[in-house]
């Protein structure tokens, strides 16, 4: 670890916080339906949308109608994306003449984009037609993120309102999130990326003559705009397979820092927006600080593991001072690769600027554990906040008992119903991640996709299901995902991770909204101070360590000790 590396990490994170606080205020205003700076320009567009869709923006929904609207939207999104892929051979804008996408891959891809996962079991340039890319995938980059933000605010409204039968209007939240939050910031970030040298053109490719005189076709396209929403919407699906390690997607150190900033800024801003929405800035700040501590801890472990180099290579005389550079870009180095890895898995982005598969065992454990924790530090757009709040509810329940009161969070009593729903949501993760991993390692077809044996192979499967369940989309690589088994099970894991988790969350929102607000007193334990932050970190680490310790012990941990002992698999 070098002081320059640490300084780089610090600069990016400080820039995130500096931008996230005002952005949080803005997001809170947008989702409260208030006028903002952009209202003069955007509200005619917004109203036109409502008129077109026949939505009355003033009419709020109960949690059940809200959920139904969200599900209906997702089902339609899924079905249309599936149809688009299957039928692309008969549809226009297919210059390469690609055939229909096979059923299992189309299922996986549709699920992947509807759930904001962006897991890609295919190569974009050789599978998807332009129409599919533009009408299907790009649209979902925006709306799946907006859906996440909408659901998070449904829960926030549940906490901030008292004795209310409704939690907002899904269509309004979706529209405003896209129009006022994601689109404008995407445009700004896209232009900044263009300024830093990322191509943005409708031209398909450039024919170049290399120094040797050979002809080369270099693919380009509207990359900067794609790149911006890839990070901002915590989507992660890159223009190229190499993702942000490709020199066009991220040409230099500055563009790399901007991209890390872009993938962290909205999730952190959402935490601050939460504080504004519940009229107590400190509540949002406590959550943002907790997220930051968990994130930084991961970054430091990964950086430490990567900067130390590979003991096996050191033993045969390789200089360890540049760190473990396998699978890393020289223009980024271990510090920025570690930060990117932790940030992309701490959010549910999944973009990469280095090969996580090539990280040291403990370096690779960081992105894996980040996802096993459900990507809550700081989490995907919206998804991070609601995932985090579920954990906060469980933490507050246990802590609340310890101070001798019926536990309450922001004045809302946590009773049997909320506990049942929170546990239901929390159960989904181990069920999906451990369940699918266990079945996969027992099946011939599951093991056939592995490129590595031993603990590393187990890490690859575990990583894939963690990534899918978590709606992250980052791949450890080393696992051939485009098989019937993995297309289907990974798709199912994405489905569970998104909807089986969020339906109980929305039910909690409804249940909280209907409750009275309990007045706070000295006897109420404060949920904004260092004690609460410490408690949250303790609960998060212990809860997830207990769930996944056996699995990670058999994966990265044993690999680490084996490597120290000079053993490979």
């Amino acid at each position, binding site marked *: 670890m070098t002081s320059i590396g640490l300084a780089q990490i610090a600069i990016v994170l400080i820039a995130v916080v500096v931008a996230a606080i005002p952005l949080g205020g803005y997001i809170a205003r947008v989702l409260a339906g208030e006028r903002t700076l952009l209202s003069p320009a955007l509200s005619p567009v917004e109203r036109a949308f409502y008129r077109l869709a026949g939505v009355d923006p003033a009419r709020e929904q109960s949690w059940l109608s809200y959920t139904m609207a969200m599900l209906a939207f997702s089902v339609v999104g899924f079905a249309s994306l599936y149809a688009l892929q299957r039928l692309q051979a008969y549809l226009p804008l297919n210059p390469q003449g690609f055939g229909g996408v096979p059923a299992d891959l189309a299922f996986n891809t549709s699920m992947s984009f509807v759930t904001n996962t962006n897991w890609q079991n295919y190569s974009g340039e050789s599978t998807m037609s332009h129409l599919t890319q533009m009408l299907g995938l790009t649209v979902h980059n925006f709306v799946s993120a907006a859906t996440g933000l909408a659901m998070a605010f449904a829960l926030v409204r549940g906490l901030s309102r*008292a004795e209310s039968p409704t939690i907002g209007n899904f269509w309004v939240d979706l529209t405003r999130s896209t129009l006022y939050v994601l689109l404008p910031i995407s445009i700004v970030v896209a232009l900044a990326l263009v300024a830093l040298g990322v191509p943005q053109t409708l031209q398909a490719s450039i024919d170049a003559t290399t120094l040797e005189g050979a002809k080369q076709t270099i693919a380009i396209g509207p990359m900067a705009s794609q790149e911006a929403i890839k990070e901002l919407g915590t989507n992660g699906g890159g223009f190229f397979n190499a993702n942000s390690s490709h020199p066009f997607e991220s040409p230099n150190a500055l563009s790399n820092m901007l991209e890390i900033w872009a993938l962290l800024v909205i999730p952190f801003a959402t935490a601050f927006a939460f504080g504004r929405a519940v009229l107590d800035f400190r509540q949002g700040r406590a959550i943002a600080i907790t997220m930051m501590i968990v994130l930084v801890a991961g970054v430091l472990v990964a950086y430490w593991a990567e900067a130390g180099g590979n003991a096996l290579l050191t033993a045969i005389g390789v200089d360890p001072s540049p760190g473990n550079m396998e699978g890393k870009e020289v223009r980024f180095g271990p510090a920025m690769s570690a930060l990117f890895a932790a940030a992309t898995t701490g959010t549910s982005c999944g973009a990469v600027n280095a090969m996580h598969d090539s990280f040291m065992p403990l370096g690779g454990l960081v992105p894996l554990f980040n996802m096993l924790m459900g990507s809550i530090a700081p989490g995907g757009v919206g998804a991070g906040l609601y995932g985090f709040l579920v954990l906060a509810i469980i933490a507050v*329940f*246990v*802590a*609340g*008992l*310890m*101070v*001798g*009161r*019926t536990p309450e969070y922001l*004045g809302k009593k946590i009773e*049997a119903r*909320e*506990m049942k729903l929170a*546990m239901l949501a*929390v*159960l989904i993760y*181990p069920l999906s991640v*451990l*369940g699918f*991993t*266990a079945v996969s*390692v*027992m099946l011939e077809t599951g*093991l056939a996709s592995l490129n590595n044996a031993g*603990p590393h*192979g*187990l890490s690859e499967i575990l990583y894939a299901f963690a990534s899918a369940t978590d709606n992250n989309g980052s791949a450890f690589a080393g696992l051939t995902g485009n098989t019937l088994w993995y297309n289907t099970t990974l798709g199912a894991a994405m489905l569970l991770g998104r909807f089986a988790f969020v339906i109980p969350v929305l039910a909690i929102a409804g249940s909280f909204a209907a409750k*009275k*607000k*309990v*007045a706070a*007193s*000295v*006897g*109420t*334990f*404060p949920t904004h101070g260092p*004690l609460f932050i*410490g*408690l949250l970190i*303790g609960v998060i680490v*212990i809860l997830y*360590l*207990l*769930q*996944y*310790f*056996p*699995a990670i*012990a*058999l994966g990265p*941990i*044993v690999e680490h*000790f*084996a490597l*120290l*002992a000079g*053993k490979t698999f």
Partner: protein
Amino acid sequence: MSHKVAAPGLFDAGIIRRAAIDAFKKLDPRRLARNPVIFVTEIVSAVVTAFFVRDLLAQNGVASFSGQIAAWLWFTVLFANFAEAVAEGRGKAQADALRRTRSDTHAKRLVDPQNRSRMKDVYEGVSALDLRLGDVVLVEAGDLIPGDGEVIEGVASVNESAITGESAPVIREAGGDRSAVTGGTTVLSDWITVKITAAPGSTFIDRMIALVEGAQRQKTPNEIALSILLSGLTIIFLIVCVTLWPLAIYSGATLSITVLIALLICLIPTTIGGLLSAIGIAGMDRLIRFNVIATSGRAVEAAGDVDTLLLDKTGTITFGDRMADEFVPIDGVSERAFVEAALLASLADETPEGRSIVALAKNVLGFSTPNLGADAKIVPFSAHTRISGVDLPGRTLRKGAVDAVAANVRSVPVDFERAVERISRAGGTPLAVSENGRLLGVIHLKDIIKPDIKSRFAALRAMGIKTVMVTGDNPITAAAIAGEAGVDDFIAQAKPEDKLSYIRREQQGGRLIAMCGDGTNDAPALAQADVGVAMQTGTQAAREAGNMVDLDSDPTKLIEIVAIGKQLLMTRGSLTTFSIANDVAKYFAIIPALFVVAYPELEALNVMKLASPQSAILSAVIFNALIIIALIPLALRGVPYRPVGAAALLRRNLLIYGLGGLIAPFIGIKIIDLAVSAIHLA
């Protein structure tokens, strides 16, 4: 206070013996199903026992190991049952004593209660169990009152020690706020006729028996929420253990079902699962031994949540009667002369005010008791004149309400009026003294705040509880007393409906209210309050309306009731934290043990340096079982509550039960491992 029903000690030998037997009876799966964590433990104990039998028959060399695991799993279940049985046992001992007061009661039922003239004579002897609602019974000196009811005629002194433990008799009379009698109590003198208001089986004593026995025990809301959390964790760890099997096969290790079950039992929250119902029963029991009967566990939990405490001024904050505090002579009268006159005027006055004047004159100002002499003529206090006094030869001493005394004097000096005004403004009652038609001065009577009450309010404030004083006094008086006693708010000139509307208003603001009351006009407010404590001396209506009855009729006990409620929740929370934190150490014991053959490198995780894989697993299981036994005293006594504010409490409990829960098992498992390997159990 002498308790007739002596509270048994925490580990009374008789209770322990009975609990040990009950622990086996409770193995019945139908009863255990109420407790998911222990139910799962029982099922897997049976499974491991089956494997033990198989190992024994197959003689594969692991029978000793699986036998020991099976035994300790059964111990885990038995220890949990034992904890519950001990908690119940203490209540049962009390219930038996109470039941004896009920079983052999005979009632004298009036044949014709309408006929008032000769109703005392005509009655029939029936068993108390045959009494119906509305029956009227005669209870004479020496008789047990056969059931709960209302005195409709007569006055009697009643010994209520059977339920209150208080041996001093109380007066029960028809009409007013002291008309309620309780079955099982004894009339000491005189006679009363009682209209029965509770059917046999639902009397106060019956309810008390059911409560102390825990027979009617239903899970409280908070306990249900916690059970859900524990069940959820159990399911999560089931998933972890079931999926570990294929992961182990992939890793080249074959795990036996026995060790997977051992891991499961170590991970699921058996500690809190095993102690949860004992904590609930013990909480109720603490309240009962504190002489408060709660009608439901829900009320006890609500007590922990109380934000606002409504307290009557008289009898709770101040002593029931006003007392002399100061003698203020008017100009031209020496203090000595005035005090002497006041003393003489009060000597024969047996009212508390009169006695307090004598006491002040004697104790504070050093007067000795003068002799009134034979020819003194005492003028007793009458509500009509509002004056009392004494006529001595040549001296006519009068003492009483200012306006009444002033009406009979020649002139009212300005400094007298000034003194009266000053006393009134300070919330006191001025009492005028005159001699031969001339005013001598004013006695300042004031409410005397109970000596320790101010510090108790400070403690409540530290707990985050607001205290509100309710008084019939005018706002000026109320404010003065409120300031002196240190309450946060007061309701002056309070009518019964004011209490009710105050409670409603506070509840609207999201606060939980506790109050106590005894009169029938308190009943609506008692019913509306989240925690309504009725006094045992109160009316039947009040007792029905509240959700707790205080047998000692001591309103200040609300403070302890709140603490008991908080303690109940804190004990649950702390043991849950402890139970979950324990799991970390168990992983470090078991995971390396499970996989050390497949991956010898994992020996690095064996930070406790446990002797062998088998002893590591066995030690973790033994620790897991023994910790339940070790924590029974804490579960029954409760985690101590200190009124220091939520943040400080949480910090303290997190340190003890969170951090302690992380560290303790590392030490405990290591010690057990040393013992296990020393005597070659594994």
